[in-house]
């Protein structure tokens, strides 16, 4: 069918050959996906290639900026021979443990306090200036305090990570509770829900989409907290590995540590998305509900 006749008789064309039209559309979508992936690869090649090239011919000093091949080499040495602090997996495991614990402690406390303050107007009014003040100071510096008071092991890092996580989750849970649809609350009360039921069956499920959105950001912050905690003083972990590399003027080591953290963060992000989909499966899914 020519384009011209297709334009003249759009409805007849669609009715006669719906299969062909849709298969052509599928084909176009597939081609687009390939194009996007190809261009992504190109960006990576250009970026790493120019980095490698400029450092190799000496325009950029590889002593300060490292070079991709050196970073890969450093990673391989860490994997095959272990790091200066011990086997690589141990460093990753230590940092992961600190991050996950800090994330859990911070988000559980954030949800509890957020829901409590969201439900209790008086408590919220009394505490709000203190919370705002606490939120406005750069809390990472508390890591230094924790390193003094809690020592160089796990506890100080978990504390740093959880304080970063707490405020993000807290504010989202608080807002989520405040934004609950008043109609839903009225309906639940008419149907006979008492205060406890109102909290567990209406307020918390309704606030969950706010809370879930905050978990993405807060896991990243937990990782920041753990690594900063390690920078303030530690014996193991990816942050300590970066610190050690920095002390040896090893730019490749710093970049290699960063790459490790990026991988950890990406894996965690996908886990949280899976968790989110489980928690709020009642929500319309914007991806599957879109008609092709």
């Amino acid at each position, binding site marked *: 069918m020519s384009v011209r006749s297709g334009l003249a008789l759009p409805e007849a064309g669609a009715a006669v050959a719906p299969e062909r039209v849709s298969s052509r559309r599928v084909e176009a979508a597939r081609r687009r996906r390939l194009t996007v992936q190809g261009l992504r690869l190109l960006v990576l090649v250009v970026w790493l290639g120019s980095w490698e090239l400029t450092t190799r011919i000496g325009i950029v000093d590889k002593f300060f900026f490292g070079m991709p091949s050196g970073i890969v080499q450093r990673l391989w040495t860490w994997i095959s021979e272990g790091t200066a602090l011990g086997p690589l997996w141990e460093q990753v495991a230590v940092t992961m443990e600190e991050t996950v614990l800090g994330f859990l402690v911070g988000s559980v406390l954030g949800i509890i306090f957020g829901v409590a303050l969201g439900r209790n107007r008086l408590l919220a009014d009394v505490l709000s200036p203190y919370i705002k003040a606490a939120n406005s100071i750069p809390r990472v510096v508390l890591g230094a305090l924790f390193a003094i008071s809690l020592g160089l092991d796990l506890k100080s890092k978990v504390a740093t990570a959880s304080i970063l996580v707490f405020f993000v989750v807290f504010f989202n849970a608080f807002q989520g509770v405040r934004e609950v649809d008043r*109609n*839903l609350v009225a*309906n*639940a009360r*008419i149907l*006979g829900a008492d205060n406890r*039921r109102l909290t567990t069956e209406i307020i918390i499920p309704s606030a969950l989409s706010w809370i879930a959105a905050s978990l993405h950001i807060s896991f990243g912050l937990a990782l920041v907290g753990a690594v900063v905690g390690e920078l303030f003083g530690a014996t193991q972990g990816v942050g300590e590995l970066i610190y050690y590399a920095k002390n040896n003027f090893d730019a490749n080591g710093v970049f290699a540590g960063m790459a490790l953290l990026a991988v950890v963060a990406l894996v965690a992000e996908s886990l949280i998305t899976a968790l989110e989909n489980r928690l*709020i499966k*009642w929500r319309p899914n914007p991806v599957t509900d879109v008609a092709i």
Partner: protein
Amino acid sequence: MAPAIELRNVTKRFLTPKGGVYTAIRDLSLSVAPGEFCALVGPTGSGKSTTLALISGLEPPSEGEVEVFGKPVEGVGRNIGYVFQADAVFPWKSVLDNVAAGPRYRGASAREARERAHDWIARVGLAGFEDRYPHQLSGGMRKRVALAQTLINSPEILLMDEPFSALDVQTRTLMENELLELWAASSASVVFVTHDLEEAIALADRVFVLTAGPATVKGDYKVDLPRPRDVAEIRFQPRFDAIYQEIWRDLRDEVLVSYERQKRIGAA
């Protein structure tokens, strides 16, 4: 015998966010007999929804008395059902859990609540949709869920706040007929708020016309059309027309007042 619902000289004021006082209802009195189907009509913003909130116990009156079956209303009563204008079914609960919510909140075991919910889901014509979430249903189906959710508690007082205003005309007529059937099988007194006079006459035994806010009762009309009624057909009866014209004369003035006010606010 005590009336099912009695409001005596009720006034309701709200504090506006700017610190002013807004009077939604002033000196309103009305009473509804047991088993009676009443409609409240009035221009938009005339305190119809506020009247329902007072009867339900969700809001206390500022002045005057609100009584249900001869007892003053204190908090949300257990014999009240309330169908809201906006969607108020719980989006994170399946149809089954939505309908079972009332009995569960009122102390029934999970099994009993589910059994009764199955029964009511079938009665509103949603059998087979028990596991769906509200976002997977059409607007009309969600309204059926809301009806089942409310009626499963066998309320003696049924309050409905423009429940069908968001539906298309065909679905609306269907739902109105179903409501009349379900109501006929119960002994509930109904207060049905609407701004649609045709809907009010087609459904109700009695129509109250409210003034443009602050609301008070301007007229109280008996609708002596025979039951059972078919909402789609009753509109063609000559008696329907006569009642319509009688009430419309009253309502028109209030609608005009309300319209002029809105124009003034819009111009300011």
